[in-house]
């Protein structure tokens, strides 16, 4: 999708800075991308090929998403400030509290997001994709970087 079209969905992106880093694909979604999985979209729904950890209740809640990412070694944290030796993810939620999106922090301190069925982008700040589509960041999580990724 051309940048101008992306910016219609996310009006703050242009001002806060971003770049497109992949072609558009429905093969995975933002939750999968935050979990570094590009084979399946992650979502709590009992339908193949959507993935959700079997140990976690199939509820569309921030808590359920937190629990799913605890399975990957993440723990709650206070904010999205870059911390050496850690990687962070942010869970966005809409006004009704339902999770809408996730972003993952890069080693540079910038963030990477998969925009639904569209492209992956690298955005400088989390607020770049806040707004009508994804609401606001509701929860941060972090885990210690694996030695090979540090």
């Amino acid at each position, binding site marked *: *999708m051309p940048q101008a079209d992306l910016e219609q969905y996310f009006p703050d992106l242009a001002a806060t800075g971003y770049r497109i880093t992949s072609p558009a694909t429905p093969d995975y979604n933002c939750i999968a991308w935050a979990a570094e999985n590009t084979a399946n979209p992650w979502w709590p*729904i009992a339908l193949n090929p959507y993935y959700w950890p079997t140990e976690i209740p199939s509820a569309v809640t921030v808590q359920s998403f937190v629990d799913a990412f605890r399975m990957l070694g993440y723990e709650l944290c206070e904010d999205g400030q870059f911390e050496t030796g850690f990687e962070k993810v942010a869970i966005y939620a809409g006004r009704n509290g*339902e999770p*809408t999106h*996730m972003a993952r922090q890069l080693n540079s301190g910038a963030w990477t997001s998969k925009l639904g*069925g*569209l492209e992956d982008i690298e955005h400088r700040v989390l607020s770049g994709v806040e707004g009508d*589509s994804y609401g606001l960041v509701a929860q941060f999580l972090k885990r210690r970087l694996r030695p090979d990724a540090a």
Partner: protein
Amino acid sequence: MKPVTRFSKQFGSFVSSSLTGEKAGFLPAQMELLGGPTAETFQGVLEIRHAEFHKHYPIGGIDPKEYGLLERLSDRVNDLTKEVALLKQGSTIRADEPSELAQRFAEFAGKWRRETAVLSNVHRIILHPAYQRIIGLGPDAVPLILKELSQRSGHWFWALHAITGEDPVTSGATFKEAVDTWLNWGRAKGYV
């Protein structure tokens, strides 16, 4: 045009054995068409057949004694619809020719794509009103969904499952594998 003799025989047998008396009021027009049916005329007959089916068997108010017949007729219409889909493979029906159904599908699919493009919430994607309208198009939409899946990919698995009652995708399959599995299913059923 390629004659469709096996279908004319099947159809003639079907209408003569299934419908009698008043309920067969539409038969002359159909039988005239059966004089030299092609895939196109057969599709026309089938459409008349659908219309007459619903005229004589409106939803609700069904005489319980006729319910078995209703079920058999419904099954037969579904079978014939699938057979028309098979005929399309022989190019007697041009699959690329825009039909009213194809136009409606394109309209709903376009709206759905635009309005769900940035969503990751699969529930919201498949509960979108335009997606639900596509499911409401029923089995006739299956070839169109599979064509869309082949050309653009997308979250069509729920619609296919909802319409057909099938789920050929195995647990653990990737998204790409799920697409391939449904397309292979469609080929096996004569939809692709």
